[in-house]
């Protein structure tokens, strides 16, 4: 009789195969961005020349994306955290309906949302040609993540008791919100912020429709480089994206473990 933990050999083999399929392109792209000549491979020697060229040609898209993501985090905090609180405390049907509506931009393809935005506000030229136009799109798309994540934290039972205690001690709403509630859900707020940041930095489906030649983000630049530049530059640019996104993802993972340790699953 086989041991209950034993797996048929096929499964580990399949796992190796799938892992190769997932990891090989990343490795290939990192390699291609750092060698002198992609066709000649590692034999052509390593270089940082392509990274330098990416920074020359596309440097502005990197700063634009970082700034945009930062503003998106700030915006979603201002709009989302009070909203998440209200969603967690309200028992009305309207609140449920609004919460459903708010998640629609995730359920509907980004392209459709972008099309709607362009058709509704495309005529306002100063708005259309500014980064604010892209920011609005990113906010619509990221807000539900902020509201859901922080709202779930606000719903914890011990927090309701804590708020009640603060109220009975005479703390007014602002004192309770800033002094008690926000610190209590801070890990969730930070986690949601990091999530919003990565979503904004990597967003393409909306952004491609919303951008103009003067308002280009990192993924928009990536699409441009893949279409018009040599494969080494596209790869080096991809490497830049990884540099931007990896620290945030690690932070997110670390924070996830922390939350799990403190509050259980």
């Amino acid at each position, binding site marked *: 009789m086989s041991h209950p933990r034993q*797996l048929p050999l096929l499964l580990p083999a399949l796992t190796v195969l799938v892992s190769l399929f997932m990891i090989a392109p990343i490795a290939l792209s990192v390699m291609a961005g750092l060698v002198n000549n992609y066709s000649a491979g590692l034999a052509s020697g390593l270089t940082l020349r392509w990274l330098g060229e990416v920074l020359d040609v596309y440097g502005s898209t990197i700063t634009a994306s970082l700034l945009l993501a930062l503003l998106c985090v700030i915006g979603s905090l201002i*709009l989302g955290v009070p909203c998440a609180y209200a969603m967690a405390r309200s028992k009305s049907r309207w609140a449920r309906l609004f919460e459903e509506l708010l998640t629609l931009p995730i359920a509907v*393809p980004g392209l459709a949302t972008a099309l709607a935005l362009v058709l509704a506000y495309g005529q306002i030229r100063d708005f259309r040609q500014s980064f604010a136009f892209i920011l609005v799109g990113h906010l619509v798309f990221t807000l539900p993540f902020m509201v859901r994540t922080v709202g779930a934290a606000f719903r914890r039972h011990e927090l309701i008791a804590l708020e009640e205690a603060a109220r009975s001690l005479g703390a007014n709403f602002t004192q309770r919100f800033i002094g008690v509630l926000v610190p209590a859900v801070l890990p969730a707020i930070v986690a949601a912020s990091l999530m919003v940041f990565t979503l904004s930095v990597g967003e393409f489906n909306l952004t491609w429709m919303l951008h103009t030649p003067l308002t280009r983000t990192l993924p928009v630049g990536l699409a441009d480089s893949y279409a018009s530049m040599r494969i080494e530059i596209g790869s080096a640019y991809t490497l830049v994206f990884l540099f931007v996104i990896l620290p945030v993802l690690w932070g997110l993972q670390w924070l996830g473990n922390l939350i799990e340790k403190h509050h259980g699953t």
Partner: protein
Amino acid sequence: MTSPSRLLSACVAPAAAFFAAFWLLPVVRLFALPADKGWATYFAVLTNSRYLQSLLNTLGLSLGVTLMTLILGGLVGITLARLNFRGKPLLLSLLTLPLSFPGVIIGFFIILLGGRQGLVADVTEWMGLGRTTFAYGFTGLFLGYLYFSLPRAIATYTAAASAMDAQLEEAARSLGASRWQVAKDVWIPELAQTTLACGAIVFATSMGAFGTAFTLASKFDVLPITIYNEFTNYANFALAASLSIVLGLITWVSLFLTHRAAGPAAAGA
């Protein structure tokens, strides 16, 4: 002192105003737009054979990708949940890394694998079979979509399979159940909710995916690219709106129905 309900309303107000102005209102306008060109515009996707073909392509591709993702993701997830080895957390985080990649990067990856300068072309040339490329047709698109769907499925299934009741499986085995019976009677029912929720998300994401197909400039027409072309190349706004409505309704309905069926337990998937 302000009443609690007024307080809550004040908390929602900024988000509600923002959402109404920049999503609800534009989408209502999007819904109304095709009517300008006559009511028939709403059904263009059914009456025009080119759009219908594009929709069927997208549906077929997405269903195929979903099925493949669930099978591979499920098997890999169960395996990873059972095996313990050094570097497993690292492998898991590498496997889920592509979740945060924009579609364009995945399109580029497929070009690196199956494009004219691709890895597979090098390998097949070395084997004396000539340079094989697959990036720019159905295969490239299928693999690209599979690539961005698998991380979610692997992560979800690994988590679900780790939480699966091991005693049930051991009981089944000790009663003499074969591997196939264990899979059929224990794994599949235990993972049914995960499968439903994950399948809906993968399907909806594939239907709406734009970046990957855009980068591959695929010869295989999918609906998001058709919409984009109608809008930018032909300035056919009413038609682009009509096709977007169809696409949006398909993804929303599939997510909504599975959410209903799977219940709140699967909502986090």
